[in-house]
Structures are given as structure tokens and as C-alpha cells.
């Protein structure tokens, strides 16, 4: 499994100011919890879809946190991978309403292209002059972990030398099923390839991803056992597993299968979106509490399952300010 070192973290979340608090959930975000004018100074942000604003702001924060290392990387060696499920759903609702009620001419031009959720990552690439590559991942609920995995693989294949990996979501619009408790906010991680046997002193730690597919209604079979075996093959068993699961058949099957796999397993209910498992991942990396070895696992009703193995290092010093420009 390919490993990523995490050099910087940034979050834009209702109810959490810093990565260490990213597991804290605010039942309903306080109105005005995010102010684009203070979070993103300058021109060209006010009209962006809000999930794009969250992503840009979280990335600025992560790059500041990562210090000088990313600055040195030429534009053609930078990459961006962003996971999302619902970033553009509210906009699409509005656009479709406009078409249904008045016709396509009523669509607002400046946000029009963002019906394609991949534009969110592309806007990030424009912001930080990323010429290496940009990729969006979008599997239900596992998209954030998939982004880390795709990023790690791309680095291993030599497609870039440093990455921003992000996950961003906006609340589902009211008429969508599952709107209640849907994810909102963004996290961003600055990542570089892990060097074999070397602990990077600037890193929060490292992460490795493994995924599997459990068709809805199927019994957890070899696929999950194989993934777990590969994940825990080298190194001590994790003391703790964070499971972010819904109460679908797949979610319950994974929860049952997890029993006894590690010291303790905590299960957090998952809402719509790919952000909540990423919040848990970021918080574990930022705090390193409960020991250095961790697993976060998540799954979707549709069958996607993903595991993140985290190895954290003590991370005591705030990094110096820096930027990618």
C-alpha cells in the first residue's frame, strides 16, 4: 500500500476552528458561521458556490500550516485531488428550477459551469497554479478517502511531487432525500510521498488507504477480510477504530464485522456526503491521541467501503506561515 505523509491540515467546519476539533459536530450550523469576505480576501470569491469557498479557504489554511516545503515545488509538479458528493447539488437544484419555471436563459452565468462538480477542484488549481494534474473523486461517502488513495498512487507513479487533497460538501437542498444532517464544510491536507522507513519531522504522520466493495445485501466476505489483512499486515494492530457508518444494510454489516477487530471501535452516524469520515481522519492526525496507530473506516449504502490506516507522530509546533504562490 502506498503511503502519504501529511504536512499540513486546514479545516472550514461549523463548530470547529482547528483540525484537532474536526470531529466536533454542530447539530445545525449557526447562520453566518462562514464569512467569505474574511475567509477569502480579494476579488472573485463572493459568487462562487459555497462549497467552493469552503474548499479554497481550507486549502489556504492547510498550505499555511504546511510551511515552506510546498513553495519549492514547481507548478508542473503540483497536484490537486478533491473528493465530493454534494458540493454542487444546491446549485443544480436552482439551475433546474430555473429551467423548469422560466427556461435555460434564467440560469445565472457566473456559477453555471459548476453544475459539473469537478469544477470545484479546478477552481482550486487556478487559485494555486497547479499544472501537474487535478482530479475529482466522487464515490458515495468514500470520496475523500478515495482522493487520498488516488493522490498517493499518482505520487508513486511520478505524476507530481506534492498534493493538496481536499474534501468539500454543501448541505443538500431541502427537497433532496437525506438533506437533514448532510455534511457541510471542507477539509484540506497537504501531502507528499512517504519515504521508506523515515519519519518526516514536518509531518503530522502518514496515511494509507484501502478500499473494497460490498454489494448491498451481500455478506461481508473475503473483500473486507483481505482489505483488513493488507491494512494491518505491517505494524501493530490499531488500538482504536473510528467507524463512520449509516444504518443501511451495508453500514450495519460493516459495523458487525468490525466487532473484535481492534481494541475499541467507536461508531459515529454518517450523514449524506463524504466529509464526516474525513473530519475524523483529520482530527486523529492532528491530535494523535489514543496512540499512534489508528484506523478510520467508512461505507455507503451503495456498497463502497474504505479504510484509512493512520500513523501519527507527536506534532507540537505550529508551522510557520507560507504559501504556494
Amino acid at each position, binding site marked *: 500500500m502506498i503511503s502519504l505523509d501529511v504536512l499540513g491540515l486546514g479545516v472550514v467546519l461549523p463548530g470547529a476552528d482547528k483540525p484537532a476539533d474536526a470531529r466536533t459536530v454542530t447539530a445545525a450550523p449557526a447562520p453566518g458561521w462562514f464569512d467569505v469576505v474574511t475567509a477569502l480576501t480579494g476579488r472573485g470569491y*463572493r459568487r462562487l458556490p459555497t462549497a467552493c469557498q469552503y474548499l479554497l479557504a481550507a486549502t489556504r489554511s492547510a498550505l499555511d500550516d504546511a510551511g515552506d516545503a510546498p513553495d519549492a515545488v514547481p507548478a508542473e509538479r503540483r497536484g490537486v485531488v478533491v473528493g465530493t458528493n454534494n458540493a454542487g447539488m444546491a446549485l443544480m437544484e436552482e439551475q433546474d428550477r430555473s429551467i423548469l419555471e422560466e427556461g435555460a436563459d434564467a440560469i445565472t452565468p*457566473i456559477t453555471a459551469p459548476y453544475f459539473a462538480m469537478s469544477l470545484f477542484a479546478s477552481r482550486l488549481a487556478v487559485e494555486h497554479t497547479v499544472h501537474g494534474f487535478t482530479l475529482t473523486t466522487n464515490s458515495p461517502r468514500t470520496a475523500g478517502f478515495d482522493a487520498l488513495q488516488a493522490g498517493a498512487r499518482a505520487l508513486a507513479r511520478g505524476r507530481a511531487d506534492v498534493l493538496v487533497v481536499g474534501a468539500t460538501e454543501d448541505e443538500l437542498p431541502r427537497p433532496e432525500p437525506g438533506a437533514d444532517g448532510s455534511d457541510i464544510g471542507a477539509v484540506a491536507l497537504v501531502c507528499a510521498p512517504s519515504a521508506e522507513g523515515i519519519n518526516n519531522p514536518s509531518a503530522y504522520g502518514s496515511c494509507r488507504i484501502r478500499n473494497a466493495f460490498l454489494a448491498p445485501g451481500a455478506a461481508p466476505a473475503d473483500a473486507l477480510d483481505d482489505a483488513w489483512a493488507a491494512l494491518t499486515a505491517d505494524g501493530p494492530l490499531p488500538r482504536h477504530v473510528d467507524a463512520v457508518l449509516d444504518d443501511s444494510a451495508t453500514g450495519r454489516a460493516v459495523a458487525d464485522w468490525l466487532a473484535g477487530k481492534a481494541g475499541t471501535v467507536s461508531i459515529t452516524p454518517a450523514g449524506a456526503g463524504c466529509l464526516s469520515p474525513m473530519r475524523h481522519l483529520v482530527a486523529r492526525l492532528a491530535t494523535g491521541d489514543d496512540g499512534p496507530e489508528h484506523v478510520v473506516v467508512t461505507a455507503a449504502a451503495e456498497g463502497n467501503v474504505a479504510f484509512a490506516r493512520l500513523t501519527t507522530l507527536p506534532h507540537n509546533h505550529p508551522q510557520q506561515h507560507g504559501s504556494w504562490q
Partner: protein
Amino acid sequence: MSENTTTALDLDELRAIVADALELPKEEVTDEAHFANDLQVDSLMALEIVVHLEKRYGIKVAESEFKELSTLLQVRGLVESKLAGGK
């Protein structure tokens, strides 16, 4: 479609509309600032200005018509001619 009882166009209001569409302070949208060269207006922002104008003045502007315009004064010319009855 708004009922227009006067054809005199308030340039300052027009300036405010364009500035708002471009997220710029009004002072930067001078009478002759060039949209593309001075104000970094791209094709999407140009469309955005058109939408704002159409809503405020109840006119219809074709994309091809707007493409010819580069300054606030030229925009005023187009809007005035539309209000005077040009389709």
C-alpha cells in the same frame, strides 16, 4: 419587463451595476476603463454583466452585441439605444 418613463440613463447607477457584477469598488469602473485589459473581465463575467443589465432595465442584449463593448460609456450607449426602442 419594466415600464420606462424616462430615457435619461443614470451613469452612476450603471457604474454601480457593473461594479457589483464584477465585484469591484465603483471607483475602479471608470468611464473608459477597458473591461478586458484593465478590469480582467472574462467571458463569464461579461455574461454576468449582461444579466444584471437585462434585469435592471428590462432589455434584451444578445451576446454578440455585448462582445463589441469594452467600456462603461459604450455600455451606456447600448442600453440607451435599447431603451429608446431598439430591439
